[in-house]
């Protein structure tokens, strides 16, 4: 069942939680040890798996390379792609996207924000009618206030430990994010095997939700 389906999964924390779901669905996880292999074609025991960078997952799904993608809601909101359908909240890999600074006070006047999420940040401040300049960074965002690049940051927070270590405090939560299952619209609509895979994951998610 579902073995002609291919899933592109974002490497990192999302992949760790997805491995658990995959195993519960009865499929053997194809990545062993420290393998650097990124493409595991489907076989008779399990669907195919592609390990990808988070922001590439939607592209692989929209182009039909993968039937499904597993990626965080934060990434989907930052890089919206109408070429994919969000078909399930996997309710795992929870984290939040926050505005943080050296004090919890809402900023006064025009401000500069360092972030990996310039699109979400601009939308957030636009809704508040607050002028903002974003500084796009690709990592170590929490350093920005410490080294004087920008007094505020917008970044993903899991436990809050990294913020604390850099003397930063959450000002406001912008978005609660969880892992999302996205589908190629064509595959979703015309392939029975795609919807079977979705149903299988849905049963596991619902069972877990019912148990908690």
């Amino acid at each position: 069942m579902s073995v002609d389906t291919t899933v592109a999964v974002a490497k990192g924390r999302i992949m760790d939680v997805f491995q658990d779901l995959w195993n519960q669905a009865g499929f053997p996880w194809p990545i062993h040890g420290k393998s650097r292999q990124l493409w595991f074609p489907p076989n008779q025991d399990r669907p195919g798996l592609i390990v990808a960078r988070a922001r590439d997952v939607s592209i692989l799904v929209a182009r039909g390379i993968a039937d499904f993608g597993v990626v965080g809601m934060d990434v989907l909101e930052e890089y919206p792609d109408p070429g994919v359908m969000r078909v399930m909240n996997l309710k795992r890999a929870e984290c939040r996207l926050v505005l943080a600074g050296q004090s919890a006070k809402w900023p006064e006047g025009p401000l500069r924000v360092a972030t990996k999420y310039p699109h979400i940040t601009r939308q957030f401040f636009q809704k508040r009618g607050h002028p903002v300049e974003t500084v796009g960074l690709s990592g170590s965002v929490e350093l920005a206030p410490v080294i004087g690049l920008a007094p505020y940051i917008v970044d993903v927070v899991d436990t809050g430990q990294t913020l604390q270590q850099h003397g930063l405090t959450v000002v406001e939560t912008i978005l609660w994010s969880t892992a999302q299952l996205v589908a190629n619209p064509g595959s979703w609509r015309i392939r029975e095997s795609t919807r079977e895979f979705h149903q299988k994951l849905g049963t596991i998610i619902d069972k877990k939700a019912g148990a908690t």
Partner: protein
Amino acid sequence: MQRWLKENRRQYETFLRVVNFLLREGFDPVPTDPLRNEEYRTDHTRAMVDLLGSFPQLQTSPPLKLFATGPLFHTRRSVWAQAVDVEILGSEGEIDNRQLLGILKDLVAQLAPDLSDQEYTMVYGQVDWLKRYLVAMGCAPEDYQELYRWLQQGNLQAVEAKILEYPGGNVGLLRPQPSEKFFPALNASVPITDPEGIPENWTTLWDLSLVGNWSYYSGLVFTLYHNRTGQVLANGGRFGIKTPTKTFAGAGFTIYFDVWQEALAGPDGYVHVS
């Protein structure tokens, strides 16, 4: 290089076949500008009605039959893709779904004479039925716009979660179903007197989560998928577009040449012509 040139020639011949077919069927070409309002062209239909709106008088009977060719820009992928857009413009009652879908069927035969009907699946949606269905489920009319926007953005999960909050909410019609299951289920919530007179030229599914790419769609919408690649070969629907001077009712579709090439290509990426 010879192979590449031969392939280009074949693609161009296919393109000419499509254009000649449309000319023979009485469609008039409309040149649209690749740059519109300082943005790259992403849609021919809107550009065509803007041009037509600049004329004081429109020929409305019989309906205007038009087509436009040229690449469309995919913003997310930052690529241009070759497309042909076919439109029938006129008053609402004049446009027959069967006529439009018949033209699509004939064009498919021009594009891919060697592919059988089993290689395609046609999925239909209906924007007006979706609205009535959601309202019947308990959706407040003012919430409809938000649910519709989510569907346009592909956020089915958010729409389903919202519907399941309504007492008796049921998401079944937002999943693809064959006509024989879809219409009884739809009629249980929303009585439909006219099932749109759709010819079932290919494997046909109905799915109210299909709302089309553009907010001007007002009734039937459709997407023709290629079964092997899962890609969109053509899509379109009925629409109403307001320009500053006129309102246009019509129906049409876009066929995507690049996707057709992928559908027709062998494992080496080339189309083998006998």
